[in-house]
């Protein structure tokens, strides 16, 4: 059986507001799905529901044949759901290397090892260092995360997810606020991950050129609802996307 991630009628209400409304969608390996939609469409909330930061009011999430709707965030991460956050979410006073080492440690299942000093675990350190080199942060490894530039923090955020070696990569606007010359580093990383056809990649992104170049499929959320799903060219051209996402009124309504 191949790996699948599926949401069925996924819904969450905050009081009277329905942030994600009956979203049913299946994601398959080797496919990079871009999730687009205007601000407040529920993209990040949809991510939070999948990775367990929020619990669904209704509906279910199936991952790898298991219903994970009731699982906590740590359990979902251990099952293979990796998440990079939109608002940078790091360990501010720990160094860059320590940040990544924690993720590497989590991936290796080292949770309650308290009798050995950490530096004895050379395997973890080596792995953390190689990931830092991948995201071009090798020279910043001794710096506290809080002292990094915004772009470097975004890269570290991505590095933490890569270090988890997940089966599902969830990027939430990975290039937001990055300088022009930093963007390619992250995009190349995503492209590399795509090469490995066994991973499911979800990407929330506003930049349409990024979406066009990377996505195999686009789904559109609007007011919490799934309004379009298909190949990039088709979805971008559809009137509903023109209206919902690009803010162009469809000709029929004029």
């Amino acid at each position, binding site marked *: 059986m191949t790996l699948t991630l599926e949401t069925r009628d996924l819904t969450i209400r905050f009081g009277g507001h329905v942030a994600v409304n009956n979203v049913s969608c299946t994601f398959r390996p080797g496919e990079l799905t871009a999730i687009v939609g205007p601000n407040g469409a529920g993209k990040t909330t949809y991510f939070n529901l999948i*990775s367990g*930061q929020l619990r669904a009011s209704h509906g279910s999430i199936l991952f790898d044949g298991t219903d994970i709707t009731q699982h*906590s*965030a*740590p*359990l979902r*991460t*251990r099952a293979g759901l990796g*998440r990079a*956050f939109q608002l940078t*979410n*790091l*360990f*501010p*006073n*720990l*160094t860059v290397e*320590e940040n990544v*080492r*924690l*993720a590497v*440690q*989590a*991936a290796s299942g*080292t*949770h*309650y*090892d*308290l*009798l*050995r*000093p*950490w*530096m004895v*675990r050379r395997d*973890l350190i080596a792995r953390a260092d190689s990931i830092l080199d991948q995201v071009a942060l090798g020279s910043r490894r*001794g710096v*506290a995360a809080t002292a990094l530039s915004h772009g470097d923090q975004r890269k570290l955020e991505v590095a*933490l997810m890569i270090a*988890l070696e997940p089966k599902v990569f969830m990027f939430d606007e990975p290039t937001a606020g990055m300088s022009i010359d930093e963007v390619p580093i992250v995009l190349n990383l995503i492209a590399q991950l795509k090469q490995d056809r066994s991973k499911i990649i979800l990407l929330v992104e506003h930049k349409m050129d990024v979406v066009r170049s990377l996505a195999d499929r686009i789904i559109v959320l609007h007011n919490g609802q799934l309004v379009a799903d298909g190949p990039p060219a088709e979805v971008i051209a559809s009137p509903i996307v023109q209206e919902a996402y690009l803010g162009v009124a469809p000709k029929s309504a004029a």
Partner: protein
Amino acid sequence: MMILSGDPPRSRVLSLLLVVIILALAATPFLFPGAKALNVAAKICVFAALVASYDLLLGYTGSVSFAHTMFYGIGSYAIAIALYGMGPNWAAVATGIVTGLPLAALLALAIGLFSLRVAAIFFAMITLAVASAFQVLASQLSWLTGGEDGRSFQLPELLRPGTVLISKSLFGFEINGRILTFYLVFAISALMILALLRVVNSPFGRVLQAIRENRFRAEALGFRTVFHLTYANCLAALVAASAGILNALWLRYAGPDTSLSFSIMLDILLMVVIGGMGTIYGAIIGATIFILAQNYLQSLMGVAAKAADEAGLPLLPGLLHPDRWLLWLGLLFIASVYFFPTGVVGRLRKAGGGKGAGSSH
């Protein structure tokens, strides 16, 4: 370096200070005559370990507990009740240890699993409530605990002052049971501090720091933080109870004022803050400064007041009168917290340039 778990003091002044403190403590029976000096030295040892275990919670996980003296008290009372009830023998010491330590750990486990799931403030409130209840319980169950009077007991033969192990004729010093007890306290406290240093520098310890920094993100990495926090809470409780055992053995007494009172809890908090949170070494520095001030400030002020009086200075003799020592102690703490917000250790490490990589603390 392995004995320090790869986490050296990282400041020359701090290293020197620690070496001086440890050597002075180790040599107290020979250097400083009199019972008071030895009592102060033993108290510093016990509190260094107790404060270090509190630092594991406050400094490394960021959780504020008010139940630390309760665990300290559980250790004290367990050994006191056992020795009081069973008589001064080693079986009683063993009984006290095997009832006190598991009791402390179980209680810490229950409190942790119950309250560390949610916001940190809830844990603080629960520990406060449980500790208050325990204090009342200890004073009410007077048939067991001796109530407000506490329990005095005798130590096994080997540890009594009257037991001469090495007579004076051999080295010029008499090694008696009292001195042996002191070294027992010293060695076990030192071992516990080294063990805590190992724990905070282990992969597990790094997760604790991660939880302190950003619990949400630690969860998102796959760490089930409630178990890490509970585990840390149990370890801290075990060390606190062990420190309680040592303290009771040293005092040959356990009572509400020496082990359970909230004023001790405040002392612990102050020592952690003065020494420097999240450093472990801060516990040694904080305990030393605090306990020395507590014991010698008064007599020091007496000398100063007298000198000022003889010099004919106005106002000063009154201000420096030994009865005002608590005022000066208070001012000293306000000043130290104000000038060293990161504690003595944090201050010294910053002054030393912080050459070491590792944690930012």
